[in-house]
């Protein structure tokens, strides 16, 4: 073979390699961008789900392809951040990206990752004692939660939601050939067999395979059921950061209006107790202060702060 041929083959192969490498990199970038865009869209689409005076709201989210929704939480800044990451199936392969989209005003509780094409979004306000935020619970239609011996108000709420994957009454609706992942959520003090989640409603404790967590209000109870322990604990701390800021806001409102001054000291106590929360077991103390302020606010008549 002559030199020009060898030269042409080597350089031609190099050019082809560069072109293929460039195109594959470009496809990878486009897939990452698409994932980031979808993650941002999920966060944005949660805005209309914010509650007014509703007790809870449920909605459905469809993806055109098989999707994994990863949620994470960090405590940086004044309010921490809710992180969302999406991974979608392309040519039967999961496209993993490390691009997280963050939101300061969202609190999502879900399995990590939650996988499927159809997802249910259930939103419930968290009042402590004033409305702090709406908590969002994302579950895949492939994950079924079966609530056994739940208190009447929980059963009523789940029944009213009419969310396909939240079942009550001994899960009799489940067929033996059901391929979905079933998580049994049992209510009661004694640990029952086959229960992945055990709720001691009286002592406000939820036990999962990750360990025990404490909850106050039903909104946090659902959070403890649907999320992993580390995410739940992180969200509790973020929520307490928000409680602290809102309590300062109400304290300033008192100065602005000059009415409701008897709640000023209690608000300062709430700020201080929310500030020192390091995990969910500290919630009892904050709840004690919160209940006290709530009763004062209800009795304040025209000077109600919230």
């Amino acid at each position, binding site marked *: 073979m002559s030199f020009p041929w060898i030269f*042409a083959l080597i350089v031609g192969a190099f050019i082809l390699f560069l072109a293929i490498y460039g195109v594959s990199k470009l496809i990878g970038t486009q897939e990452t961008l698409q994932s980031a865009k979808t993650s941002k869209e999920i966060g944005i689409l949660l805005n209309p789900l914010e509650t007014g005076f509703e007790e809870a709201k449920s909605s459905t989210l469809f993806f055109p392809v098989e999707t994994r929704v990863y949620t994470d939480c960090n405590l940086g800044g004044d309010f921490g951040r809710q992180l969302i990451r999406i991974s979608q199936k392309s040519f039967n392969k999961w496209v993993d990206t490390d691009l997280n989209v963050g939101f300061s005003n969202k609190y999502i509780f879900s399995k990590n990752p939650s996988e499927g094409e159809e997802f249910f979004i259930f939103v419930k306000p968290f009042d402590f004692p004033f409305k702090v935020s709406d908590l969002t619970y994302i579950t895949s239609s492939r994950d079924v939660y079966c609530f056994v011996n739940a208190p009447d108000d929980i059963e009523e709420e789940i029944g009213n939601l009419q969310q396909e994957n939240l079942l009550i009454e001994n899960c009799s609706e489940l067929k033996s050939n059901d391929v979905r992942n079933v998580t049994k959520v049992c209510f009661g003090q004694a640990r029952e067999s086959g229960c992945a989640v055990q709720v001691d409603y009286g002592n406000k404790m939820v036990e999962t395979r990750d360990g025990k967590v404490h909850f106050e209000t039903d909104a946090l109870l659902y959070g403890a059921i649907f999320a992993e322990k580390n995410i739940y604990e992180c969200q509790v701390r973020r929520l307490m950061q928000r409680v602290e800021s809102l309590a300062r806001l109400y304290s300033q409102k008192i100065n602005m209006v000059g009415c409701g001054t008897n709640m000023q000291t209690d608000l300062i106590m709430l700020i201080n107790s929310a500030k020192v929360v390091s995990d969910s077991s500290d919630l009892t103390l904050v709840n004690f202060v919160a209940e006290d302020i709530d009763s004062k606010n209800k009795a304040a008549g025209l000077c109600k702060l919230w």
Partner: protein
Amino acid sequence: MINLITIDKKGQMKIQQMAFMLMAVTLFFLLVGMFVLVWSFSGLKESATALEEKNTMLLVTKLANSPEFSCGNAFGTGKINCIDADKTMALKDMSDEYSGFWGKDISNIEIRKIYPIDEEEIVCSVGNYPDCNVIKMYDKEIAGNYIWNFVSLCRKADYGEERGIDDKCEIAKVLVGYTQTE
């Protein structure tokens, strides 16, 4: 001898032609690649702006119900789409803490009283509140793109010794401005 030089020169010529050709092909691929990159990234800017617009649009409909603004039960029965003016004035003092809270591209949030109609625009501050009609969350103008919605604007008004403190609700517009991705 003469023949050998002629062959050498021909070979050199061929190599030079090949090298020029290959350079041209490489340049062609590079130009096409750059064109594709520029095209795809120009679409990215547009989709970032469209997402921001969507966020603002959905946010403005629900902003009045977020705990930092909402009236809750402070004015008699529970009200939706109602902004507590006293709370918003207190929030204005905490605007640094809340910067970027509703989205990093949200440039400003303004509440403008529209009824009863006032002759001149007076921006609220701690000194002139409640004798004013525009509450600006951040100390900058809403420039460029914004989306607005009607809300009730309620506050505790002092009616003097006879009537004391009572609730007062007016009609207002909430404007949310967002920045376009450059």
